[in-house]
């Protein structure tokens, strides 16, 4: 059974104070001049294993091997110890204290006292040998490998590194991420954009801030909508330092933030625009054509509003006839294709405006035979045609006429009437145009005003779809059966969704079709700049 023993050493060489307390979970306390003994007594006369104090169930005993005195009497055999017994070994006095029952005590205090004159020992020790701090040199805490030294070292390293990082071109080390391609020229010049740190990218609604806005120093940005409730700051949507190669490619969530519950200035719901859009697939409304309404106010009609969806353009066109296999051309039978009339612009986005000269004249020519010659009548206002005819008659039909000036004028007028009669009986303006024509009167023709853009709120790239993807026009525009001019042959949103949906893969981002900043541009787009001007800008 192990006993707990407390050994208190009082050593003269250590100022006679209690300097060490040991606890042993052992029943045997060894005493000797070996440093490994539990009670180590340093004296030449003391044996390595001089004695031991043993505890067992029957009590506490001193077991001597060398010269040992118990209460001034030398003991040679194992002897029982009592409370306050004094053991003397050489110059050391060992007192055994047993506060409780000595036979059953589990807490015995042993005081070790050196019976030597303190001042003498200390002096002698100092004179004889130097005292070396030997094992203390293994103490990590006292070495340079301690927490305080390393904390100081790392902090200094960091401060030096931070100072280095914030100087000159190294400043970019503060950057939370690379700039977009468009701004990569400013990668090493943080102050180009961060002119006034706190207010650098504040809201654009504030005119004062807008005047000093770093983005607006280069970008001429138009307001999204005059009636918008607030103008977000640039960085709300265009996240720089974000591995964002194309900064203009923003997220739908920025649009949805407002358009999911669209309100206008004053906080009321928007009436001009669909006010609950959260995505393209499920909540985006059907496309709407913008058509000139009464008093030239644009009206928008959704493509699924079949009742009102009428092309009111004052011109007559039958797509079915024009796309027939046996169409009579200027020379022979021919077959037209869509791009016979609808050519894609050089930019690739929209089709070029249809004109008579470019798209109609080849088949619908205005060549008319008169007795004074074969004329190519200009396509245009009948008043202009009249002047054209009058000039032609004056130069070509009066050859050999002899008479007075008034007779000549009368002749020309008569000839003009005959020519117009021939013209408007040969050339049927009404074949294509809505016109009124009566004897002696010029035809009244309503201008066609064919819209250049039907879906004016969205953008589209025809070339990408037809040239790159090789889609046929009729994949989206169902024209083959269209016989009426009033037909609007635009694809519905469902046509687009066939590809532009999450399941099909083609993106359906808002900015794919919609421009937030209409007609915005860079301010310094003058021509013929040098590289230096660009770099210094």
């Amino acid at each position, binding site marked *: 059974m192990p006993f707990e023993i407390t050994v208190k050493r009082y050593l003269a060489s250590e100022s006679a104070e209690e300097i060490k307390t040991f606890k042993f979970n052992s029943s045997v306390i060894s005493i000797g001049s070996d440093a490994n003994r539990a009670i180590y007594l340093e004296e030449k006369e003391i044996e390595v294993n001089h004695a031991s104090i043993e505890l067992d169930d029957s009590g506490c005993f001193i077991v001597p091997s060398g010269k040992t005195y118990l209460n001034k009497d030398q003991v040679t055999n194992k002897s029982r110890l009592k409370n306050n017994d004094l053991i003397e070994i050489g110059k050391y006095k060992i007192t055994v204290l047993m506060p409780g029952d000595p036979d059953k005590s589990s807490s015995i205090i042993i005081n070790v006292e050196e019976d030597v004159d303190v001042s003498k020992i200390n002096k002698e020790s100092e004179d004889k040998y130097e005292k070396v701090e*030997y094992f203390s040199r293994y103490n*990590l805490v006292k070495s340079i*490998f301690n*927490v305080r030294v390393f904390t100081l070292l790392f902090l200094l390293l*960091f401060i030096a590194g931070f100072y280095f990082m914030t100087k000159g071109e190294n400043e970019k080390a503060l950057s939370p*991420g690379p700039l977009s391609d468009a701004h990569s020229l400013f990668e090493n010049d943080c102050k180009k954009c961060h002119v006034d740190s706190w207010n650098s990218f504040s809201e654009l609604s504030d005119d004062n801030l807008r005047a000093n806005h770093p983005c607006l120093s280069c970008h001429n940005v138009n307001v999204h909508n005059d009636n918008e409730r607030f103008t977000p700051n640039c960085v709300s949507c265009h*996240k720089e330092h*974000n591995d964002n190669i194309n900064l203009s490619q923003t997220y739908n969530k920025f649009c949805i933030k407002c358009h999911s519950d669209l309100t206008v200035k004053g906080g009321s719901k928007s009436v001009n625009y669909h006010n609950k859009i959260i995505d393209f697939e499920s909540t985006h409304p059907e496309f709407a054509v913008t058509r000139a309404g009464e008093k030239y106010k644009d009206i928008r009609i959704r493509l699924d509003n079949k009742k009102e969806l009428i092309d009111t353009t004052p011109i007559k066109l039958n797509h079915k006839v024009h796309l027939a296999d046996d169409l009579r051309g200027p020379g022979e039978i021919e077959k037209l294709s869509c791009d016979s009339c609808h050519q894609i612009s050089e930019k690739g986005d929209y089709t070029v405006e249809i004109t008579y000269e470019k798209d109609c004249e080849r088949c619908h020519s205005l060549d008319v035979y008169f007795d004074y010659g074969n004329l190519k009548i200009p396509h245009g206002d009948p008043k202009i045609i009249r002047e054209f005819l009058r000039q032609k008659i004056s130069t070509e039909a009066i050859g050999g006429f002899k008479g007075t000036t008034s007779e000549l004028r009368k002749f020309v007028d008569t000839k003009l009437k005959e020519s117009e009669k021939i013209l408007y009986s040969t050339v049927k303006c009404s074949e294509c145009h809505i016109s009124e024509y009566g004897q002696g009167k010029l035809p009244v023709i309503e201008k066609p005003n064919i819209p250049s853009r039907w879906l004016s709120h969205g953008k589209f790239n025809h070339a990408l779809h037809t040239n790159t993807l090789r889609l046929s026009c009729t994949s989206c525009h169902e024209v083959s059966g269209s016989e009426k001019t009033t037909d609007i042959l635009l694809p519905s949103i469902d046509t687009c969704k066939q590809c532009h949906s999450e399941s099909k893969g083609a993106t359906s981002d808002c900015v794919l079709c919609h421009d937030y900043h209409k007609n915005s541009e860079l301010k310094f787009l003058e021509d013929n700049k040098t590289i230096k001007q660009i770099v210094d800008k």
Partner: protein
Amino acid sequence: MRKNETIISLRGSLWLKISIAVFIALVISYFFYRISEPRPGGGTTFGLVYGFIGLGIFALLMYFGVRKRSYVNNFGTLKDWLSFHIYFGVIMIIITAMHAGFDFGFSIHSLAFYIMIIVVVSGIVGTHFYLNLPADLEKYGDEISFAFADSEMNTLINRIKSVSKEKSAVFQKRAEMIIASGMPGKNEAFWIMFRKKYGVPTESEYFESIKDDVVNIPKEESEDFQKLTVLALQKFDFQRRFLNQIKIKNKLRIWLVLHLPLSIVLSFVILIHILIVVYYNGI
């Protein structure tokens, strides 16, 4: 703590289970985050959420340093705090990487992540030491303090000097060799951790080395030479015992030399990271 229960398996590995649950939740959230956010980063909504969670956990991890020195504090047991510190320290690497969208480079912001990795790895090493080394320490007997060790060592050396005083040259040379054996060199507190022998001969090595001395020692010194031998073996034995202990004790401390100072530096780097992104309105 129950029998055979370590700080790792505390309360049936409660903190391990919690940290695994948090880890799974983070991975799932990041999966959805990546679907909705093609360009993840600290400035995105999710990125900011990860950032705030990470900052909160980091504050708690740093609080452990305060808590373990606060003996009168009853806010959770110290063992729970330590177990939390270990597991959530590791989780911090994942949260930080998610906060940054796994995009790191040469910047003050990435520096925080790099320092964090060193802090966490040093913490893992420290945990490994704390779990395994104390058992080894018990093999080398009762703990010896530095003061006691120095006192004992000086006593032994003085006794060796005393015994060898006014003796023959062979005797004195041997005494000097005994004293010099295993004396610590520069920065020995650090290098001791990597040593297998400490320049202290074993009993057989010592007896082998004094073969010639025994022949050459004058007869009248032979009795003292025996005492010198006893003292030498005492010294070597004591040195081995102490150095084995100190090797383990220093290993239990050395990881802190990186862990704690870099944690403090990390606090500053995180503070600067936050100030920069807020100051420049980049979030």
